[in-house]
C-alpha cells in the first residue's frame, strides 16, 4: 500500500502541494485528476521519490521514501514501473533494447529469457515484430505502448502512469486506456494514473482523487466520485469555466 501523509512541495516560492493525504489501495487503480498545472505530475513523482517533498512523507509498504538511503530507495523503486508522459524511451536504443534494458541491468536473466520476456511484452502491447525500430521511427501511440511494455518488463507491483493519453487522438487514447485495463487484469498491479482525460479514464479506475488548490479535494470510488456534490468536482466534471476552481 502507498500512503501519502501531509505532503508539501514548493517550487520557486509557489506552493504546489499544500498538505496531500492519500491512501492508495494495493491492487486497485487510482486515478488522480485535476486541472493543468494543479500538481498531479508533481504528486506522482513523489510516489517513487523522483521528487522529494519539503515536508511530509510517502510510505510504500511501510517504508518512508523520504528517509531512505540510495540503496534502500533503489530496492523500493524496483517495485515500480513508470509510464512517462512522453514515454521517455532511451532514444539511443531500439524498442527491444529499451524493454530489455531494466532486465539486463537489474536481473541475472539469460539473454534467451530476456528475449522471451521482451517479445511477450511487445506482443501484449500490440508491437510484435517492431522491436528493431528506434523511438524516433515510431508514432506517439507506439511510443506509449513501448513505454508501457518497458514499465511492465520487470513485472512491477506498482505502475505509475503520467498522462498516458496526452497528445493522442481520442481513438488511440481509448485504446491505451483499454490496454492499461487489460494489463491490470493480467498482472494485478497497483496502478496510479494521472490524467485529465475524463470520462474515459473512469472506465479503468477503481478510485478517483481530485487534486485542486494543492490539496485532495475529493477521494472515493468512481461511483462515489461521480455522485459527489463538491462544487469543485461538479465544476470539473461539467467542464464549467465558472465556479470555485480558477480556470485562467
Amino acid at each position, binding site marked *: 500500500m502507498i500512503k501519502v501523509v501531509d505532503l508539501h512541495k514548493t517550487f520557486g516560492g509557489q506552493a504546489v502541494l499544500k498538505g496531500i493525504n492519500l491512501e492508495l489501495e494495493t491492487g486497485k487503480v487510482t486515478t488522480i485528476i485535476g486541472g493543468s498545472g494543479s500538481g498531479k505530475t508533481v504528486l506522482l513523482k513523489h510516489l*517513487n521519490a523522483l521528487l522529494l517533498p519539503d515536508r511530509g512523507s510517502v510510505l510504500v509498504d511501510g517504508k518512508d521514501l523520504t528517509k531512505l538511503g540510495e540503496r534502500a530507495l533503489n530496492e523500493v*523503486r524496483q517495485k515500480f514501473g*513508470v509510464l512517462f*508522459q*512522453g514515454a521517455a524511451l*532511451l532514444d539511443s536504443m531500439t524498442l527491444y533494447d529499451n524493454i530489455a534494458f*531494466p532486465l539486463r541491468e*537489474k536481473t541475472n536473466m539469460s539473454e534467451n529469457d530476456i528475449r522471451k520476456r521482451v517479445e511477450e511484452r511487445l506482443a501484449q502491447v500490440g508491437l510484435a515484430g517492431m522491436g528493431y525500430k528506434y523511438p524516433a521511427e515510431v508514432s506517439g501511440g507506439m511510443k506509449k505502448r513501448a513505454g508501457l511494455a518497458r514499465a511492465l518488463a520487470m513485472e512491477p507491483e506498482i505502475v*505509475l502512469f503520467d498522462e498516458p493519453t496526452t497528445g493522442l487522438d481520442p481513438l488511440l487514447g481509448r485504446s491505451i486506456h483499454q490496454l492499461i485495463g487489460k494489463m491490470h487484469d493480467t498482472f494485478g498491479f497497483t496502478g496510479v494514473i494521472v490524467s485529465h482525460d475524463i470520462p474515459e479514464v473512469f472506465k479503468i479506475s477503481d478510485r478517483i482523487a481530485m487534486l485542486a488548490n494543492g490539496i485532495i479535494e475529493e477521494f472515493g470510488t468512481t461511483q462515489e466520485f461521480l455522485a459527489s456534490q463538491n462544487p469543485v468536482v461538479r465544476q470539473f466534471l461539467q467542464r464549467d469555466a465558472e465556479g470555485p476552481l480558477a480556470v485562467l
Partner: protein
Amino acid sequence: MLSLLARIGRFTLQQLAGMGRMFLFLFSAFAWTFRPPARIRLIVYHVRSIGVDSLSVVLLSGVFTGMVMGLQGYYSLRKFNAESFLGSAVALGLLRELGPVLSAFMVTGRTGSAMAAEIGSMKVTEQIDALYSMAINPIQYLVSPRIIAGLISMPLLTAIFDVVGIYGAYLVGVGLLGVSSGSYFAGMESSVVFHDVWSGLLKSVSFGLIITWVCCYKGFNAPPMATGVGQATTESVVLCFVLILVWDYFMTSIML
C-alpha cells in the same frame, strides 16, 4: 548602495553554490566509477565517440596548425638567420602548448557540445527520470563512463595532433621553403626532452576531464524548456574554452 552590495553578495553566493554543485557532481561521478557494475562496454563506446569520431577534425586542424607554424616560424626565424631551428620551435610549441589546447578545443566543439546536447535532451524528455525510476543511477550510467573515456581519449588525440602538426610544418618548411630536412629533425631531437612530451600529455588528460565534466554537468542541469538544451550546449562550450585556457596557464606555470 546597500542594494548594490546585496546584489553583489547574492551573485557571489550563487556562483559559489554553482561551483560547489559542480564539484559535488564530479565527486559523485568518480565515486560511482568504482561501484559495481563496471561499465566497460560503455567506456569503450565513449572512447570511440570521443576519440575515433573526433579523429578527422583533429587530423585536419593538426596538419594546418603545423603548416601555419611552419610558415610563421620560418619567416620569424629567418630574421635571425635561424631557420635551422624551425623543427625545434614547432615541436616545442606543439608538444607543450598548442597540441593539448587546440585538440581540446576541437574535442569540445565536436564531442563536448554533442555530449551536453544529448544529456540535456535526455533531461528534458524525462529519460534521466526514467533511469532513476528503473533504479539505475544516471551519473553512473551516463557521466562516469564519459569522464573515464575523456581521460583515455584526450592524450591519444593530442599525441596524434602533435605528430601530424610536426609533419605539417615539415611539409611547408622543408617541402616549400627549403629548410634542410636534416636540420629540421636534428634541431627537434636536440631540444625536445621527455618532460616536454609528458607535460603536454598531462595537460591533455586534465583537459579531457574538464570537457567531459563540464559538458555532462551542463547537460544534466539543462533548464526544462524548449531552449534548455541549446542553452546548456552553448554554456558548456564557452565554459570549457575558458576553463581550458585558465587551467592551461596554471599547469604551464607549475610545470615549466
